[in-house]
């Protein structure tokens, strides 16, 4: 799924805000950023980090620069082994039109050396939003891998099913599509009550619990 296609589809499906969170990297965020500007949708720049516990965490930033800066840092925490396209698929970097401008040689499949706690600290320190992904999924989640949700300063918690049965420590539960294919875009979403569409307003809505579900 191309970054531009994500922006267009999200807009067509009536979403106001969409985040691109590729696995362990943000190399396609520049193309996504361009696309969001053209399409006129509010883009959030992030990545789905695979922590040392193999828990997926959404690391979201307001600006492309902040996200790419974090990406550079994240890459230093990933194990160095060569990627196998045959086994794991291509790791392409594309431009706005979807032309391949590079391939990532280093595999993104592994786990970062960052723990959940350390990652939360890093993202918050950088002014981003950190949201544990799909906490109730049977793999790659806090509940599957740790058995509970540690009480840490997340911006929100993402669950597949609402209500979330685990103890979320008073955090707001949000829903997202986790779209790997075009058809998935908008399959799960939530509403946030905001004064204006934007990253900081979204953060405030999460903090205050001004979120509702379909």
């Amino acid at each position: 799924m191309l970054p531009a296609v994500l922006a267009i589809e999200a807009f067509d499906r009536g979403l106001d805000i969409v985040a691109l969170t590729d696995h362990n990297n943000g190399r396609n965020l520049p193309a996504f950023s361009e696309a969001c500007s053209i399409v006129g949708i509010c883009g959030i720049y992030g990545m789905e980090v695979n922590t040392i516990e193999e828990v997926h965490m959404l690391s979201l930033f307001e600006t492309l620069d902040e996200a790419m800066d974090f990406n550079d840092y994240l890459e230093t925490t990933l194990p160095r082994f060569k990627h196998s396209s045959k086994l794991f698929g291509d790791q392409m970097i594309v431009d706005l039109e979807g032309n391949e401008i590079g391939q990532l040689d280093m595999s993104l499949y592994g786990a970062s050396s960052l723990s959940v706690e350390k990652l939360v600290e890093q993202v918050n320190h950088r002014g981003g939003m950190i949201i544990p992904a799909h906490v109730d999924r049977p793999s790659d989640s806090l509940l599957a891998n740790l058995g509970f949700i540690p009480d840490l300063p997340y911006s929100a918690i993402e669950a597949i099913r609402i209500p979330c049965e685990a103890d979320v420590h008073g955090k707001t539960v949000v829903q997202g599509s986790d779209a790997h294919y075009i058809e998935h875009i908008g399959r799960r979403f939530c509403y946030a009550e905001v004064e204006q569409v934007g990253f900081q307003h979204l953060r405030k809505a999460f903090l205050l619990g001004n979120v509702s579900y379909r």
Partner: protein
Amino acid sequence: MTAKDLSKALNYSISATGNMEGTVTDAYVGDLLSDVMGNASTDSVLITIQAHKNTVAVASLIGCPVIILCNGRSAPADMVEAAESNGITLLETTDTQYKAACRVATLLGSI
């Protein structure tokens, strides 16, 4: 021993036949695939509860000819398909990883 002989001796349920001629000389027990990738040796049996197709990709990368899914975990269709196309033998059991490991160790002559 071969994957074929190991599978026969264990008598676990076979979800994917794979290439039964593969050699097994070692085993690795692990559920964090990043750990398995870093530490499992080639020609190992992977003893795990991670019942999804990424386990097959990792096993293929390392050169594990056999995967044993424990605790009654069942391989979804795409995992079975991936195992078949990668020539990996996929076994399923209600045994715990400890029990499966002990059995494999006995068969490999490690204990």
